[in-house]
């Protein structure tokens, strides 16, 4: 009797976990696709905005920084390439966190009516922004080729590796911010400003060496500094990330663990707070 019960329980657990995993994956795909679709829906350019927006942003920055402030890449790369190689990954980072912040609170009606793996909501903000990021890579490649920078085979290993590190980091941060935002809606506004600050703290629009000389190793306390530098080294100089990327990896692990714990702890309170 007890054995039979155990056996059937095990069977159930297996069926649930496998089916559950597949279903969660489907859910993530559909949610991300919906978000991609909704983003530029009912605009004249529609999908073109995915590529046009980062490009226009780059033009604005290039004008302000290169033409007005005369910032240059110490490595001698053309400024547009220097900028975009860091700005595109940063845009993925920033917009993921911004869109995920309100992902629970904006979906209150859904969360109150149907039970499903809820972490899919903030995660789909990250994946849909990853999609936009991947689509911006051809722009970068075209520009690189225009200046005779030919992408090397290192990209094949380096690109997925950096995507993985940044994805894990974002997954943790997205869960963290989205969970807290259910109880403290001020957070989604605060995040917007903080991301702006973080942008200027990170060597995106200026070279790492510019601040490293003055601040020393302190700049590496910002985990995004090493990650962005790794993206830039890969895109511009075909360099695979080295061991000095450890702050980003460590931060990704911490963010993931913290996000998981906070989400698990607060999830039970969603029903009264939403």
């Amino acid at each position: 009797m007890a054995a039979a019960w155990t056996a059937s329980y095990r069977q159930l657990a297996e069926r649930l976990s496998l089916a559950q995993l597949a279903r969660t994956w489907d859910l993530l795909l559909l949610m991300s696709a919906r978000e991609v679709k909704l983003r530029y829906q009912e605009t004249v350019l529609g999908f073109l905005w995915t590529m046009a927006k980062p490009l226009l942003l780059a033009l604005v920055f290039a004008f302000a920084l290169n033409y007005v402030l005369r910032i240059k890449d110490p490595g001698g790369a053309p400024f547009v390439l220097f900028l975009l190689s860091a700005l595109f990954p940063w845009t993925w980072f920033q917009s993921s966190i911004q869109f995920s912040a309100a992902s629970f609170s904006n979906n209150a009606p859904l969360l109150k009516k149907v039970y499903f793996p809820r972490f899919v909501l903030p995660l789909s903000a990250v994946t849909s922004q990853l999609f936009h990021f991947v689509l911006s890579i051809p722009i970068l490649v075209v520009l690189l080729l225009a200046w005779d920078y030919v992408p090397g085979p290192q990209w094949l290993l380096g690109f997925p590796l950096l995507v993985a590190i940044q994805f894990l980091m974002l997954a943790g941060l997205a869960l963290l911010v989205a969970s807290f935002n259910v109880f403290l809606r001020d957070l989604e506004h605060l995040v917007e400003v903080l991301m702006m600050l973080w942008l200027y703290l990170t060597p995106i629009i200026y070279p790492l060496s510019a601040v490293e000389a003055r601040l020393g190793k302190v700049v590496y306390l910002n985990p995004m500094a090493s990650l962005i530098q790794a993206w830039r080294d890969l895109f511009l100089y075909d360099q695979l990330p080295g061991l000095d990327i450890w702050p980003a990896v460590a931060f990704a692990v911490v963010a993931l663990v913290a996000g998981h714990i906070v989400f698990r702890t607060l999830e039970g309170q969603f029903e009264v707070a939403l």
Partner: protein
Amino acid sequence: MKSPYNDAEVIALDGVSKRYFLNPQRMGELKTALLHLPTFLKASRARQEFWALRDVSLTIRRGEAVGIVGPNGAGKSTLLRIVSRLAPLTKGKLTVRGRVSPLLELGAGFHPQISGRENAILNAVLLGLSRKEAKEKLGEIAAFSELGDFIDQPMRTYSSGMYVRLGFAVAVHVRPEILLVDEVLAVGDAEFQRKCFDHIEKLRQDKVTIVLVTHDLESVKRFCDRAVLLNHGVVAAEGKPREVVDEYLSRHFEFSASPTSRGDS
């Protein structure tokens, strides 16, 4: 699909209690909290408890249709929310075996900007189907909801009736093993209501477990195998629908033998 739990208990509540706080401690606006810190802290200590369910034990077997009756605030909806895992329990143990489809509010999560078709697929996956299964079911869902060409229009163009029809169609076509129904059938026109009831009847013949929360006592007597009377979060009576309904009426309306209940077939 054959479930491996023939005649097994599919829902088991064991001493389940659910506590809410009447003024839930919310951080709310940071500003208010900071400006009124002393009162804020005092208020959060003095929050009042409210037990929506107290020590409820209940087992429901596969294929049963159980009606939950009781006055407003008795805990009926809380019970459904707990079974559908929307509300975590404060105390006790809950076992649910099988796919639960909550007919709590139809079309929750439909997005007005995308088409009925895409919404139906996403909703079906939310309710537990895989993407592949959802696409296969789409034909049936579209036919049942009688939307015609509107299925490919964005849902902001839908009337409220169309909205609810699509919601119901999705909810009953996800091959639920347990269907939770909360007063939702009072929507749509009479003809569609009948269609919904017919469909639920069909699901019942397929051994789908049904938990029905309603104030329509006649439908409980007609439709359910068993009824549970909740009062102030406690199970006050349980048994044959007719007896439980009579008990309910005599308790709450002081009718001795329920003269208002017409003879049922």
